[in-house]
């Protein structure tokens, strides 16, 4: 039951893109076509889940015990948190990149420059930091659920957006608003719709 609550909360109610403003750059950049958006969503979900698990291990099983033994204060080494997290994420992305290049070359080429940029997808770092801050995700399985849900939430957001943008191609948008302007306005309306989910899971 707890898992379902965490999953619903992070996928719908506190969606990382619409409520947390995380991962906006790929959300706007890779949402032109549905299949590309889906591929991006899968890659991000994978990286976010792995990074969530590894950063949990780093904080709870490495930094806290070492700091506790050396300084008597388990939070003493927390200043290394950001550097450690971003290094984990960067290596995970490298892994995904090599995997896609070998087994899914078409997807690899179509994602192009956006693939290494998953490193700078703030949804991933954001989710890892939130997992560390939130009281309900202190156990390993809850943390894993939250990370996975964060990825799914991102995927849902970017696929919906891509679906709408495929149709936007055929509409007559005022010239200055073409491209980013109209995309942001659509995102605003989508965010408004997601606000309607507030209330689920409580």
């Amino acid at each position, binding site marked *: 039951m707890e898992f379902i609550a965490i999953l619903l909360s992070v996928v719908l109610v506190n969606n990382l893109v619409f409520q947390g403003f995380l991962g906006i750059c790929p959300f706007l950049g890779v949402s032109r076509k549905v299949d590309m958006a889906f591929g991006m969503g899968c890659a991000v979900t994978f990286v976010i889940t792995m990074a969530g698990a590894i950063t949990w291990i780093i904080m709870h099983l490495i930094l806290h015990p070492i700091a506790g033994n050396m300084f008597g204060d388990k939070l003493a080494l927390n200043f290394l948190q950001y550097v450690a997290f*971003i290094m984990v994420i960067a290596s995970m992305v490298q892994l995904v990149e090599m995997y896609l290049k070998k087994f899914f070359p078409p997807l690899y080429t179509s994602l192009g420059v956006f693939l290494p940029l998953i490193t700078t997808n703030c949804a991933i770092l*954001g989710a890892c930091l939130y997992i560390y801050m939130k009281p309900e995700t202190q156990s390993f399985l809850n943390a894993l659920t939250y990370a996975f849900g964060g990825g799914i939430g991102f995927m849902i957001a970017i696929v919906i957006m891509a679906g709408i943008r495929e149709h936007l191609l055929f509409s007559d948008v005022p010239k200055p608003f073409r491209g980013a302007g109209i995309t942001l306005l659509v995102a605003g309306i989508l965010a*408004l719709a997601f606000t309607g989910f507030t209330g689920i899971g409580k």
Partner: protein
Amino acid sequence: MAAETGNLEQFKTGILDNNPVLVQLLGMCPALAVTNSVENALVMGGAATFVVVMSNLITSLLRNLIKPHVRILIFTLTIATFVTIADLFLKAYLFKVSQAIGAFIPLIIVNCMIICRAEVVAIKNGVGKSLADAFGIGIGFTLSLLTLGIIREILGSGTFLNYQVLPKTVWDTHAWIIMILPPGAFLTLGVVVGVVNYMRERGKVGA
């Protein structure tokens, strides 16, 4: 971007033609997340400027030593370090503000604007030009955050830097709550980007 542009040009282009948020659409996450008040926008802009300056400085100093395929790793390492320093500094000297936007400071690490400047400018250019570029981009970023912050704070809370500017009685009952909520951020940024595009188009035709 021509290689022979001067430092002043490089500085100005970051503020206007290459404005990271409004034109290049980089660094959007903080632009949306912390701009519900002017104060938050200012501090976020300042912190990001510090980080982009330091990261451009280090990258440009080490540009001849960095191997191409480890460069992303080195960029993120540098950025993460200076973000941590900025974070500690805010906690030590601007405790109140750091409590308000503390969770967004680490996200400067993944602000693609900063890594983009390292990749596009700092790794190919000398220290002077890289610094000029960093200051330009930083100020351009701060200004766009400020624009969004002003619009959203005035419309959403009826205040400017926490001073009531719109009649409080009206705003207590009829506030545009939506402006401080996430959807308001997207809508405001969408409109501002549209307006900026319109003005740039007109500028080009006029000239």
